[in-house]
């Protein structure tokens, strides 16, 4: 499933006369696509035009970046971005390291309790840390890590989804490669690093994209655990900024909204195919 033909049409029947079926399907697809894009198009419209054009749609309305500069100076977004960047980086590194080691154990070692422990790992797919906010809050308090960036990441560092995904990938790697390396005297960790990790790079990429976008967008847990500008990620920062009653114009809020989702959106536009494929790869199996 790595070939590029993945997203190409699977059927190429030659068109007969006028194809009503095709026509109405195209019409439907386009209408729905327009409907789906509407909120985003609208946000872009208001963000790039003066407040007077919030609800007036004129083709030659003056374009401005003022809303962005207003939003940028009204709240410490630079700091929020830095926090989010640190957060997703910490989580990603921890997930890769912990997930790789655990997946390797499940995929290639035989030890008592492995079946039971794997069930416990899978349990996290259902009972996510997202819903255990009350007890995890107490736990973070006990650890004395309240209002830190690490605390936002801690519950997500061991990811059942990540372990599962990597284990599946490692299992597809032929054992012969493993044994060949061992004959040459490589220890288990060297084999992991030299054989398994390089061959699983597409999975790491897919999982990395899913993880980054998920934690960039996460809101509830960071909201609970953070309490200062130095730790707040952009999602929480944005909600505080937008919640100031009445004081902020729509166009400025929309500019801030676009700003916070901007990096992800641009990354998505640039790597659209990889993004879609990553999500697919991460989802099936």
């Amino acid at each position, binding site marked *: 499933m790595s070939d590029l033909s993945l997203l190409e049409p699977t059927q190429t029947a030659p068109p007969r006369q006028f194809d009503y079926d095709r026509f109405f399907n195209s019409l439907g697809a386009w209408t729905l*696509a327009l409907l789906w894009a509407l909120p985003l198009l609208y946000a872009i419209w208001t963000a790039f035009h003066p407040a007077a054009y919030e609800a007036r749609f004129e083709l030659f309305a003056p374009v401005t970046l003022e809303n962005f500069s207003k939003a940028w100076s009204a709240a410490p977004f630079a700091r929020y971005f830095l926090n989010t960047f640190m957060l997703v980086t910490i989580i990603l590194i921890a997930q890769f390291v912990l997930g790789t080691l655990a997946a390797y154990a499940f995929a290639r070692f035989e030890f008592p309790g492995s079946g039971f422990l794997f069930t416990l790992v899978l349990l996290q797919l259902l009972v996510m840390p997202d819903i255990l906010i009350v007890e995890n809050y107490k736990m973070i308090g006990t650890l004395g890590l309240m209002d830190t960036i690490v605390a936002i990441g801690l519950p997500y560092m061991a990811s059942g989804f990540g372990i599962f995904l990597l284990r599946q990938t490692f299992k597809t790697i032929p054992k012969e490669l493993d044994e060949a390396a061992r004959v040459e005297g490589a220890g288990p960790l060297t084999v992991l690093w030299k054989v398994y990790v390089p061959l699983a790079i597409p999975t790491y990429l897919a999982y990395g994209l899913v993880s980054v976008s998920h934690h960039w967008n996460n809101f509830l847990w960071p909201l609970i655990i953070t309490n200062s500008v130095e730790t707040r990620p952009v999602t929480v920062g944005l909600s505080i900024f937008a919640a100031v009653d009445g004081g902020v114009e729509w166009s400025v809020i929309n500019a801030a909204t676009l700003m916070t989702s901007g990096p992800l*959106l641009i990354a998505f536009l640039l790597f659209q195919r990889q993004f879609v494929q990553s999500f697919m790869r991460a989802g*099936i199996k």
Partner: protein
Amino acid sequence: MTKRMQWIYGWLLLTPAMVMLFAFTHFPAITTIINSFFSTSRGRRPAKFVGLRNYEELISDPTFWKVLVNNLWYALATIPASIGISLLMAIWVNDKLKGRSLVRMSFFAPTVLPLIAVANIWMFFYTPGFGLIDQIRMGVFGLPENSWLGSQETVLICMMIVTIWKEAGFFMIFYLAALQAIPPSYKEAADIEGASRWAFFWKITFPLLMPTTLFVSINAVINSFRLVDHIFAMTGGGPDNASSLLLFYIYEVAFKYWQTSYAATLTVVMLAILSIIAIGQFFFMDRRVHYK
């Protein structure tokens, strides 16, 4: 490698991940259940065992029932709708279509945006008088302005629309992957037999997509209990809890009223619902060897 070495390596490799998993998933899940039988400690007064009192409070709490019913309606409406739309999207995008990548981008874009951010955009759509929906209603149909998020009847529906919009593109990806795994020869054979597109879909495509549909529905169910970000930005659960969902209520009880024991009791209800889903998943899914 000796058997003993296999054991030691296995356990050592697993330790870091398992410690973290236990600390932030299994242990809190267990303490949640334990704490639901205790009172909330306040200041000098420590928590003490109260038996089922929290559960009695739960049963007689009208807000709990309202929120639970909201969440069930919310799940019941958003899950089939987002799955149906996502399937339609996948079929369209999989087909030969002019501007296909643009269409696909439009469908998928909501997935990568933060829910809390897009909620701000949707807020504007729903603004009475000024918002886009009211502008169309007033301008084209001459109807009076309407407070969509301010009315008990419409507020939950408004939230549902945002959710469907956000999720359909995500589910589309899974259907797209599944559609591309269907051999083209099936379609060729059906064409030779003269089967209509409609018949082909119901007789061939839809049954073949069944495992994907189940996988997607489980995801949709979990998300319908897990994602409440848009409530924070749009309504704060109001008016009169009409748009509040279970997790949002847990948040309010725990971090607004600081009744952590009662919040734990509510979380137990959540865990029970998810367990029922897990058991359901186990029975439906075991045909397709998912975890092997």
